[in-house]
């Protein structure tokens, strides 16, 4: 039967979890990680999102299997690992972006308590611009999480929520503390408006990149494709490029070095992700066996540079 193979699943100690397990191909072209999960689920009822498999080579553990198409041959062995408690990507995004969205309003409302010794001073026009730019950015992120983003990996470890949230929440409050302070030294209104407009342009471009990525494949299709059009012709991850640029512009807008710290921390992480994605796409689209070749001149984050 071309649509079914028989495999063995073992645990870390080498004990069989399932022998001669039938894996059925759910769609025509090749087997997927979901096929393997469904097969194991039929004999072991557990959360499929916590199922992780390693392929075996010469009796030893090899690569971990990623979502999407995988190669399964008759008689193959896979090592099973049960992952820790998982949480959905979308849920994590809702949690980590919600607090930054309300951080500046909270600081504004509690200014008299946060900055004791200062008489109640209204925010300056420049501070209001910083306030709304920051808040609108995270409103946009929440809306994207609800309506735009599609995730190839359904879940991530629960601990990531605490790690990611502490980063976003911590910096949101720290940036808000300095930017909305009564003793904040405002730059000129002209320069603030100039950088705010550029920030909004970058935010729009970042959103458009997310839209392109969300529409890269049809519902249920787990294959990878080369993103095309707009800034994708120049860099692999223009969404990250625009995000980093936006926060650097926000730094010049606010002239707060806490914002610079936030921008640089985010830039470092995004560079690591972008580099990984760039390498994976180049390996996948190597031009062999009829596959497309990944465009040679496409850089990782900065066009023509890196």
């Amino acid at each position, binding site marked *: 039967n071309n649509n079914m193979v028989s495999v063995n699943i073992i645990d870390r100690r080498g004990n069989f979890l399932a022998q001669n397990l039938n894996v059925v191909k759910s769609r025509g072209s090749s087997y997927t990680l979901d096929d393997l999960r469904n097969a194991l689920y039929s004999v072991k009822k557990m959360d499929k999102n916590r199922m992780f498999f390693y392929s075996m080579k010469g009796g030893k553990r090899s690569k971990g299997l990623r979502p999407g198409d995988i190669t399964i041959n008759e008689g193959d062995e896979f090592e099973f690992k049960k992952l820790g408690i998982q949480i959905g990507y979308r849920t994590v995004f809702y949690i980590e972006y919600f607090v930054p969205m309300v951080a500046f309003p909270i600081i504004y409302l509690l200014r008299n308590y946060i900055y004791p010794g200062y008489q109640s001073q209204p925010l300056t026009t420049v501070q209001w611009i910083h306030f709304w730019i920051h808040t609108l950015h995270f409103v946009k992120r929440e809306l994207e999480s609800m309506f735009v983003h599609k995730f190839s990996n359904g879940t991530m470890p629960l601990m990531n929520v605490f790690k990611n949230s502490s980063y976003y929440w911590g910096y949101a409050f720290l940036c808000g503390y300095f930017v909305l302070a009564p003793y904040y030294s405002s*730059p000129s209104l002209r320069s603030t408006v100039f950088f705010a407009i550029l920030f909004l342009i970058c935010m729009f471009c970042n959103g458009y990149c997310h839209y392109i990525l969300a529409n890269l494949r049809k519902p249920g299709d787990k294959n990878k494709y080369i993103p095309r059009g707009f800034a994708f012709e120049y860099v692999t991850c223009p969404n990250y490029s625009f995000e980093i640029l936006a926060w650097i512009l926000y730094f010049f807008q606010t*002239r707060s*070095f806490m914002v*610079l710290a936030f921008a640089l921390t985010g830039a470092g992480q995004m560079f690591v992700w972008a580099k990984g994605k760039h390498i994976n796409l180049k390996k996948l689209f190597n031009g062999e066996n009829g596959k497309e070749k990944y465009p040679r001149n496409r850089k990782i984050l900065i066009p023509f*540079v890196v």
Partner: protein
Amino acid sequence: MSTQNISPQSSQQKYLHLHALTLFTLSLILTILIIPASRSHSYLSLCINLSRLSQLIALSEIYQAYARLIKSSIPIQIAQNLGRCFVIFCAVSQADAFSHFRHIAVWMLLFAWGLGDVIRYAFYVFKGSKVAEMLRFNGFIVLYPLGMISEVLCVINAWWYHERMAFWMKLFMVIVTVAYPTLYMYMLKQRAKRNKRMKPEAR
């Protein structure tokens, strides 16, 4: 480090040679004038102007990197040239010549830059000269830290005295905290590579 081939065979190479010769000459004049400038405000003002002229001419190295006339990366060339322009145009003012502390900081800066550029451009103008090569790969060990310290002193001075420039001076300090050690280590590695290459010849 960028390299230039100075045998003037093509118009591009003639241009590079002329560029190196011009900057060598200006740097040499600056280095000579800096000696009396230690005690004279007017000489120091003249040296500041000469240094500004040199840095403006040196901006063409960004074009040279873009046009691949020299083996230097564009972002590094931009950072080096614009960084120096920022210091000499924004952090150093003519008024600095008339305050004792600022006078010392600016004097050290111009001395380090002047002598460093004489050594650097002499290497390109007198390619093949062992002395020029030896100075090129060793002079930076002392001159680079001296230049770094003087730039920092000039920037801190501008930070204290010019309220409007405070933000840009702070940003400069943040950038050079990473940039200076990285560049110094890179230059030490280049020197080590060159010394390793020279060893069999010496034997």
